[in-house]
């Protein structure tokens, strides 16, 4: 249930990182297999908390990163979709290069400035209307 606190931080970070005047359409997050964070729980909280500055158009995309490393016993390189602690080939305890990721990788945002220059763009008007913060 710590996903609630994590998503609150995520939304605040996305709001801080988005260029002034733009609207955030997508929030791309990278989660490691050993991070003890549930993508489904993150989605649930995101749909509530995106209203705190991002708006309901914002979508969360969570990418689960495979576990990578090289077996210290048989030197075999691996990329695992599920955690596994011992090497299936030689039985050695595996050491991982990653797994703890909990990163805001990127944002997809509207190009407000460029859109503004293109006054004939019919989408401009719609976007300008939607730019109002929710509740206003």
């Amino acid at each position, binding site marked *: 249930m710590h996903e609630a606190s*994590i998503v609150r931080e995520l939304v605040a970070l996305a709001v801080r990182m988005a260029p002034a005047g733009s609207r955030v359409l997508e929030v791309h997050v990278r989660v490691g297999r*050993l991070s*003890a964070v549930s993508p489904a729980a993150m989605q649930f909280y995101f749909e509530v908390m995106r209203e705190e500055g991002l708006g309901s158009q914002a979508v969360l995309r969570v990418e689960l990163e495979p576990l990578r490393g090289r077996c210290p016993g048989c030197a075999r390189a691996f990329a695992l979709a599920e955690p596994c602690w011992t090497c299936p080939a030689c039985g050695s305890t595996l050491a991982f290069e990653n797994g703890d990721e909990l990163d805001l*990788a990127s944002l*997809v945002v*509207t190009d407000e400035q460029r859109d503004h220059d293109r006054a004939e763009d019919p989408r401009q008007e719609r976007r300008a209307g939607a730019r109002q913060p929710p509740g206003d």
Partner: protein
Amino acid sequence: MSSVITIEQKILGKNAELARDNRREIDRRGILAVGLVSAPGSGKTALLEQTLAALRGRARCAVIEGDVQTDRDAQRIAALEVPVVQIVTNGTCHLEARMVQEALARLPGTDLDVVFVENVGNLVCPSSYELGEHVRAVVLSTAEGEDKPLKYPALFRQSQALVLNKIDLLPYLRYDLAQAKAFARQVNPALEVFETSCTTGHGIQSWAGWLLEKIRDRRGPR
């Protein structure tokens, strides 16, 4: 039109930054900070009581207690005349670095060798939040079963010590102690393992001895 902006920042970067501030502050004061994490009811507070008694006269201790509700744990520690600050999280399932920062400010400024930070009882959520401790010890009681390191690997991976507590219950349980250690070492081969009972006092001296070594390492040659 839309565009992709690369951010590449840790979501909990702010917490990590505060944890680094905490570490700087406890280093400045020359204190060793020991985090205790576990599921609720594994005996963290009982272990602390025994540890504080074992360290009496050998190290100057203080405690930061984290709980969702009540100051019952802080009362138990205060009864031993050890400085203690209670953090009540009011529902939050883990301690965060900013809570520990506030608690540190309320502890005596000097004359401490070690501060214990007892996290909220939870085997999952505390793993995402660095607090600035030098070492983390995960407590696992025998009645919880031997497979918890495999089911909840994150906390076992980031801890330096594993305290297998309530070892006195072994005759009453179907619990394979060797299997529990093997599972824990699969997840984290570097774990220092202690077997303790807070009822009989078994293993407390060896755990306290390990802590004293860490305290000496921190103090350096004085």
